[in-house]
């Protein structure tokens, strides 16, 4: 009986692994590697790569710059409605990206909530690269902020108190103590958010459209090339796999580092092992 169950469990694991890995391997098997590299050099792929890198970099920089202090305020703050704020931040995570796209459209579009105001200022957002940046930031920021809040919550409050008694003002406490001690968790959240932002499809398509060289990001290019030039679509797909592997490896490295950091932050209640 025991052997039977162990056998079933192992078979189930093998099946799951094959189901998840086989399609990824198939991406690489259909076309010779040389052709994949060649396909990536064609204009649709090249343009999409440039658009993706540019918009993702800007969106990610904004998310880090605004999200990090925001997460610190939420993670270390004791204020009423904190749970509500956290839930509101998490809401976009559970929304389908297409809904996010419509929501952005009715907010920043010409006929949207802020549309007329932006129009007066001569700013047009929808179907521009700005729209891509907004869409990417909208879907990736909840992921980053949630992870960053957890990272700041994990910092021992006594260390922040200690810094304050040593005459450190709020910024110095943040920069010299909270930030370095939360760095591991912040790095992990940042990598996950970046990967999510690069893969963003639905919101971008609805809010920014799919103009090659302007708003067509890598995922949109896959969709556009799907019926025109399957090899290019496939090549972009393999690019995503490589990027995904890189993110996972980075997380492992950062993860190992975080563990040693969190070990350090653990209170020194017991004496060191002799």
């Amino acid at each position, binding site marked *: 009986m025991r052997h039977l169950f162990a056998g079933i469990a192992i078979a189930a694991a093998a099946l799951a692994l094959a189901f998840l890995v086989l399609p990824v391997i198939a991406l690489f098997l259909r076309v010779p590697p040389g052709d994949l590299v060649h396909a990536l050099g064609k204009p649709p792929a090249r343009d999409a790569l440039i658009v993706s890198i540019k918009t993702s970099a800007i969106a990610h920089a904004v998310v880090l710059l605004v999200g990090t202090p925001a997460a610190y305020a939420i993670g270390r703050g004791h204020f009423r409605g904190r749970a509500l704020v956290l839930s509101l931040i998490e809401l976009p995570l559970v929304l389908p990206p297409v809904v996010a796209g419509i929501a952005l459209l009715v907010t920043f579009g010409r006929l949207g909530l802020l549309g007329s105001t932006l129009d007066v200022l001569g700013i047009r957002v929808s179907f521009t690269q700005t729209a891509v940046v907004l869409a990417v930031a909208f879907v990736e920021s909840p992921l980053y902020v949630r992870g960053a809040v957890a990272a700041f919550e994990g910092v021992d409050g006594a*260390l922040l108190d200690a810094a304050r*008694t040593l*005459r*450190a003002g709020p910024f110095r406490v943040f920069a010299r103590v909270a930030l370095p001690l939360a760095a591991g968790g912040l790095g992990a959240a940042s990598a996950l958010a970046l990967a999510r932002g690069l893969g963003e499809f639905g919101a971008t398509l609805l809010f920014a459209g799919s103009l090659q060289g302007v708003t067509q990001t890598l995922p949109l290019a896959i969709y556009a090339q799907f019926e025109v030039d399957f090899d290019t679509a496939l090549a972009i797909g393999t690019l995503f796999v490589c990027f995904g592997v890189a993110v996972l490896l980075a997380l492992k490295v950062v993860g190992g580092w975080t563990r040693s950091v969190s070990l350090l932050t653990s209170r*020194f209640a017991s004496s060191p092992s002799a």
Partner: protein
Amino acid sequence: MDPLRLALDIPLREFALRVELALGREVVALVGPSGAGKTTLLRAIAGLQPARGAISVDGDSWLDSTRGLDVPVEERSVGFVFQDYALFPHLTVRKNIEFGRSGQAGLLERFGLAALADAKPRELSGGERQRVALARALAPDPAVLLLDEPLAALDAHTRGEIRGELQALLREANRPTLVVTHDFEDAATLATRVGVLLEGRLRQLASPAELVASPADPFVATLTGANVLRGRARRKGNLTELELPTGELIRSTDLADGDAAAIVYPWEVTLARSPPDDSAQNHLAGVVESLVPVGNRVRARVGPVTAEITAESAQRLGLRLGDRAVASFKATATKLLRQGR
């Protein structure tokens, strides 16, 4: 005028912490059970805990609720040694100590930490961490030094030695210093005056010797290590007789009436195998419940009292756990206190 004066009123969950205190350039220890408000008081002085009342240091006001003044933590001049030390784990010993900017030179040497300057806190022993924490707190030359349970994180066997070391360092620091501890022996070693805090009130503030000689109430007596026997007192000739709930009688030269507590220190209690024919008025028979060697002495629990006798005497009596023995103490060594409600 005393360098540090404070009168604080802090509402806590179960009671309000109300303390008035004035400190010179001296070490004062606050003792009391956990939850008495000791740590809260330290945090309030540092500005880490909201409080009402007044705090002034060398004439500067840090807190004055009547004027709406509440100086933020980083602008108060406090050195704070946290429980478990709260050393920055990502910084070396040197960087920890130099964190408070106006770092004094030579602190590493003075605290015997020069060889450990580039070590990270996790590589240090408990005693070394404590020295780093104290050096870090003193580096900006604070007007007031606050220590929260500085010995609690240490092993029992290193504790005695480090306590002596800390005593010397605090004396050298020579500034108003408040040490919080739950251990009377630690308090008596480190401080010139000891305040006993219970449920937010300072029950007694005196030198350790005074606290032992004349505790204000049974709680203070218990804290200083005395045996406390509660019962009903009534005059009997020149003496007072205290009837314990067990029916046994204890005689004292102190005067009392009604509910009272007899206080007798372990070193005033002698032990014998059978009731001795001596001048002691009080004999309590009981079973030996514990025998704990403390240096060249033995602390023995017999029935309701603890006796401290020499190891030599303990050996001569051949006492073992479970044996019957008689604890004796004189009426003149038995203090009576009215029962605190």
